[in-house]
């Protein structure tokens, strides 16, 4: 049972998609596993023949336990543990029990599942459809009264997030360094770039921003890597976890690999593909583990500053606030500029505030010259 991150202890086998005797190839999906983050498709990382399935649908299996035996054609069959497998998140609506005579939208189904609701008890609208509104109404009308402390039950994804963040705050001595950075040059450059592009090829500002963040991180390796077993292992490439909010609540941070080495269009396509698969529940295992740093971008019309929490075993996370139009002193005079507050949360076991300050200083220079950065 592969681990999908620091917050995963076990998974429940939903179904096998291959049977003993089947020849399987690297990248094939072997099984579906339910976790707190949704259903995960278990991906095979080597060719061979599936010899035995050691878990049954419905079994709850601890991380690290062998669930299948793969005959790779070598002297002995290797168990398909973490070394051979990696999972893929998949919030497939089809896994939910069907309710006869009633249509449930995928978004409503996901929200109901994350809220621990029995979907068969939710009253549909006049056309027999259970949508987000019906789930929310059900939650409001059936929520248990708050206890003396005002606490209510945590939902599954919220539990997973809370577990990871509590561990992070317990184990990682965080420090925070922040700068307000003038991104007018980036936005001007982007407006010109997009004016020359077709509608389908236009760039969100997150695309060049993430590229520049990644290339700047290569100059500050102490902010990019993993801290495990008392040692820091810097990453040679920037594999950026991108924090993506789920509709109906929750957050997931799948990774885009080698962000610094991607062209703008490669990064645009990667980001579009990733967000699309988060929305439709088609994430891959390799995207849920292996990020060397996380970028969390609040986006437009949100808030100015984000103070993020590091996702272990990473050693830094970069939080980007909304772009705000502000009076700003430039070239000795007050001008109207577009400003973004960027915060680095770093791990004091690996780096100091000076590293983050150096990173932000370099970032500011790169963002001022987006055409060459």
């Amino acid at each position: 049972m592969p681990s999908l991150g620091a917050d995963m202890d076990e998974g429940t086998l939903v179904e096998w998609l291959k049977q003993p005797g089947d020849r399987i190839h690297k990248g094939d999906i072997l099984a579906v596993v339910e976790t707190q983050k949704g259903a995960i498709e278990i991906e095979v990382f080597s060719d061979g023949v599936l010899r035995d399935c050691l878990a049954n649908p419905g079994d709850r299996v601890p991380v690290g336990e062998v669930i299948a035996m793969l005959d790779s054609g070598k002297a002995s069959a290797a168990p398909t543990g973490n070394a051979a497998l990696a999972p893929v998140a998949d919030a497939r609506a089809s896994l939910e029990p069907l309710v006869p005579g009633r249509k449930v939208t995928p978004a409503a189904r996901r929200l109901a599942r994350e809220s621990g609701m029995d979907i068969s008890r939710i009253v549909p609208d006049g056309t027999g459809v259970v949508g987000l509104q019906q789930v929310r109404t059900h939650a409001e009308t059936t929520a248990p009264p708050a206890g003396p402390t005002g606490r209510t039950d945590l939902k599954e994804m919220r539990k997973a997030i809370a577990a990871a963040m509590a561990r992070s705050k317990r184990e990682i001595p965080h420090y925070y360094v922040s700068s307000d950075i003038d991104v007018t040059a980036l936005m001007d450059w982007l407006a010109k770039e997009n004016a020359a592009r077709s509608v389908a090829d236009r760039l969100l500002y997150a695309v060049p921003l993430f590229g520049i963040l990644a290339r700047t991180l290569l100059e500050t390796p102490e902010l990019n890597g993993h801290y495990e077993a008392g040692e820091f292992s810097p990453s040679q490439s920037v594999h950026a976890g991108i924090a993506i909010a789920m509709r109906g609540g929750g957050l997931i941070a799948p990774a885009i690999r080698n962000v610094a080495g991607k062209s703008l269009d490669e990064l645009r396509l990667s980001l579009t593909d990733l967000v699309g698969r988060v929305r439709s529940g088609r994430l891959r295992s390799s995207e849920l583990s292996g990020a060397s740093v996380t970028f969390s971008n609040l986006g437009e019309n949100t808030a100015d500053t984000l103070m993020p929490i590091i996702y272990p075993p990473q050693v830094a996370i970069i939080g980007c606030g909304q772009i705000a139009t502000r009076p700003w002193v430039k070239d000795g005079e007050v001008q109207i500029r577009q400003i973004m507050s960027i915060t680095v949360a770093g791990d004091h076991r690996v780096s100091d505030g000076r590293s983050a300050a150096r990173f932000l200083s370099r970032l500011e220079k790169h963002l001022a010259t987006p055409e060459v950065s």
Partner: protein
Amino acid sequence: MNDLELTDMVKRVLFDVAPDLEGETVDPDIPFREQFEFDSMDFLNFIIGLHQASGIQIPEADYPQLAGLDDCVAYLKARNV
């Protein structure tokens, strides 16, 4: 297209770019960002879908005019879609 056809087209694009919303009731007056927690990527995908479905060019400066269902129908109608 008449208003009903334009409304159907906009909703089809909406559900294509956000398939998890398929079947949801769309309030015509509320911006998609508020109604369905659309982020920038969702909205850009929606604009791309609208461009492909209608065949019209949509400059970035016009994005604020496409915030909700009624806004989109009015925008497309004004461009003789």
